């Protein structure tokens, strides 16, 4: 059934009751990466905070950023730590830096062969993995290597 990188059955991401990260998760549903920026200084921050860390002001804005980045670090999981992952190892997790958004970092799976060689510094682009039959629906942010032709 699955076009998902990992099997269904892992905890479903939902915004906190106070809504801090809701713009981010809503953005992924619309295939957009939203991050926070300080309107006074242009300084980015992610994960979301209630306050701009550089000026201690509360007027944090959310902006869409280009859905690509560079592999900053990674790991390959060999040991299942959740029942849903029992048959899923190995899988690759990449830490992706977004140089065009102040170097904020996000995390996701690297699509493709789970045994592939991973190189720090490799450019990657976002893949929005929609879980539409889930309740509630959600979208994960996955990554694939940009193939230059």
């Amino acid at each position: 059934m699955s076009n998902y990188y990992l099997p269904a059955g892992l905890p479903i991401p939902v915004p906190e009751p106070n809504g801090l990260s809701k713009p981010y998760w809503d953005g992924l549903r619309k295939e957009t990466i939203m991050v926070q920026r300080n309107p006074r200084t242009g300084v980015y921050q992610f994960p979301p905070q209630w306050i701009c860390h550089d000026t201690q002001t509360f007027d944090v804005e959310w902006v869409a950023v280009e859905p690509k980045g560079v592999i900053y670090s990674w790991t390959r999981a060999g040991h299942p730590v959740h029942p849903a992952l029992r048959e899923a190892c190995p899988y690759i997790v990449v830490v992706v830096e977004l140089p065009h958004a102040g170097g904020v970092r996000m995390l996701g799976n690297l699509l493709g062969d789970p045994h592939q060689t991973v190189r720090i510094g490799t450019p990657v682009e976002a893949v929005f993995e929609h879980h539409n039959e889930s309740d509630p629906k959600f979208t994960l942010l996955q990554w694939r290597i940009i193939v230059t032709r």
Partner: protein
Amino acid sequence: MTKRTMRGQVAVAGIGETIYYRHGKATEPEMVLCLKAILAACEDAGIDPRDIDGFSSYSNDRNDPPTLATALGTHELRYSTMLWGGGGGGGAGAMANAAAAITSGLADCVVVYRALAQGQFGRFGQGPRAKTVSGDPALTVPYGQMSPALWYAPKAMRFMHEHHIGQEALRAIAMASYHHAQANPRAVMYGRPLTEEMYDESRWIAEPFHLYDCCQENDGAAALILVSAERAKDLKQKPAYVLGAAMGAGYRVHSTMAGHATPDLASSHFKTVAKHMYDMAEVGPKDVDVVQSYENFTGGVLMSLVEHGFLAAEEALEFLKLENLIAPSGKLPLNTSGGNLAECYMHGLELQIEAVRQIRGQSTSQVPDVKVSLAASGPMVTPVSTIIFGTEATL
């Protein structure tokens, strides 16, 4: 302005442990383990348990001071403190809090303790089972990034990439712990030596961590009794004086589950903390005779040793060889009881105890003529903490 310091004002007077069990194998409730470790530490120090007037722990230990004080019949409760932060980052910090309480006059006799019985409660190395996840964990858990090994692997991976450090460095750190455990009958891995071949052939948990790069999980309890330096001189044991301690982290170190966003990712987060500790202790890395460095994962030890100034990252491959890391003759004897990997994962409090044993001359892998003994807690988490003990000669 006079320098504010705890240097030499407080000493560890007693150490106590239960039997260390494999996880889930303790035969007694966690509270009983905790009480037995505290009583053992009192017996070791030669103090009446009812004279304990302060309690200090970390990592959300489930055994709260009012309950312990009531159970033990302590005369009064003057100090109870929990260092925030999960994992083992608070071990040396809980010691520092105890020492600060005594230095400042808030309490006279403080016990630092940690107890774990995973059969009664949950394990650490398993992901959450809830249906939904929010906040920072939502940014990692749905990608299968849901255990400490996975959260910290990218930090070590990046550090090894930046400094061209190979797997052999991590292997040497694992081998040192297992080597020392073979001399320590208390160690869970006593009688179970590790070879290079076993390490190389062991499965990956989370690259760059093999099975043997990862700490155990265990049941048991550990405790240390701290009193003023003056009082320690009159007690049973040779005092291990607190020369310096510090806790914390650098700039914007995110919570563990969003740790990938931390600006200085490739760090154990000791850069600022070790400096404060050395400044208070008035010693430097060259003065340290023996090191206990918390092994949640060997990659954290690698970064911790570098950030404590024992070696430059560029020297890591050359320096981190088994012969340099073992007592009695190595240049930097490391984790001389077997540590979290091979003695017991008592969230690093067993490393505090081992650092004290080295000062006393009571280790099963004793380094000759120890004067300065260091114990660092919980690399890669936040806050981390670190402490240095010295003999009377260092005061």
